[in-house]
């Protein structure tokens, strides 16, 4: 199951990459298609992140996840650094859960 997912993911990823190098496209992609493809990865990843922030484990957040998400956004917007954002998020959520549990 996991191995099928890994093998399939490896295959489709390589096929797209190989296509990019191998198949001569007649001209540049239509602007609308290019614009769609450009916005697609962030949208998919945002769709995966959203529920983990707003409805973690299926129930509306009690606050820590949303506050931590805002901390990540602020840190990344400020420093343009992925690791700084992740550390800010992890530290915020740990601290807030500690406070809420107390």
């Amino acid at each position: 199951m996991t191995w099928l997912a890994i093998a399939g993911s490896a295959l489709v990823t390589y096929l797209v990459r190989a296509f990019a190098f191998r198949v001569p496209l007649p001209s540049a992609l239509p602007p609308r298609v290019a614009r769609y493809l450009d916005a697609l990865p962030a949208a998919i990843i945002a769709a995966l992140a959203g529920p983990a922030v707003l409805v973690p484990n299926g129930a509306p957040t009690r606050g820590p996840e949303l506050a931590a998400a805002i901390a990540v956004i602020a840190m990344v917007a400020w420093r343009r650094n992925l690791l700084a954002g992740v550390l800010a998020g992890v530290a915020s959520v740990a601290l807030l859960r500690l406070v809420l549990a107390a």
Partner: protein
Amino acid sequence: MLTAVLVVGIPFGIVARQSGLSPAEIVAMSLFVFAGASQFAMVQLFTDGVAWPVVVATVLLINLRHLLMAADLQRYFARVSVARRLAAAYVLTDEAFAMAIGWFRRGRTELAYYATFAVALFVLWNTATVIGMLIGPSIGEPRRFGVDFAITATFIAIVILSVRRRSDAVVALAAALVASALAYLGASVVAVVTAGALAPLLVLFARDEPDR
């Protein structure tokens, strides 16, 4: 840019190990898929217990952007043999592409520039994965230390770093909110990913160009 690969690769190894994936599975992901955002998404989907075709489809959607690079790359690789192009394709990443295009536009056409940098990224990414994977189990009580939030935080950071126009932010926010509503209503991950795939259609109505 090379250190950036380390600071993303190590957390990937950590969260992948903490999610319960075996070392062989984690190493295989970095060796054969070799795509940062996709690999984090895969870990999330494995944690959610999603069927394998959904994982593959999600990874495909995230990586379709490589088609955008085709138009830019082709003119520089026109005289390179097919075998070499197919080898170059294996190590194509956003970072390698950005670096290569920078060189090519300055008139350097040797494939070696691209190959050296792309392979260095590949080696570093896999090294970082193994380092993260080895230190992963030593971080106890993931929930208490917020480590379970690391994937989500990584997703948010990836999205923020990729937002270059107002319409990108609108699309990402719409995708996140619709996906959350669907998840709250008990919809499957398929619905969540579909929401993500449809959200960029909003940009077709956006007028905040010019760009690129």
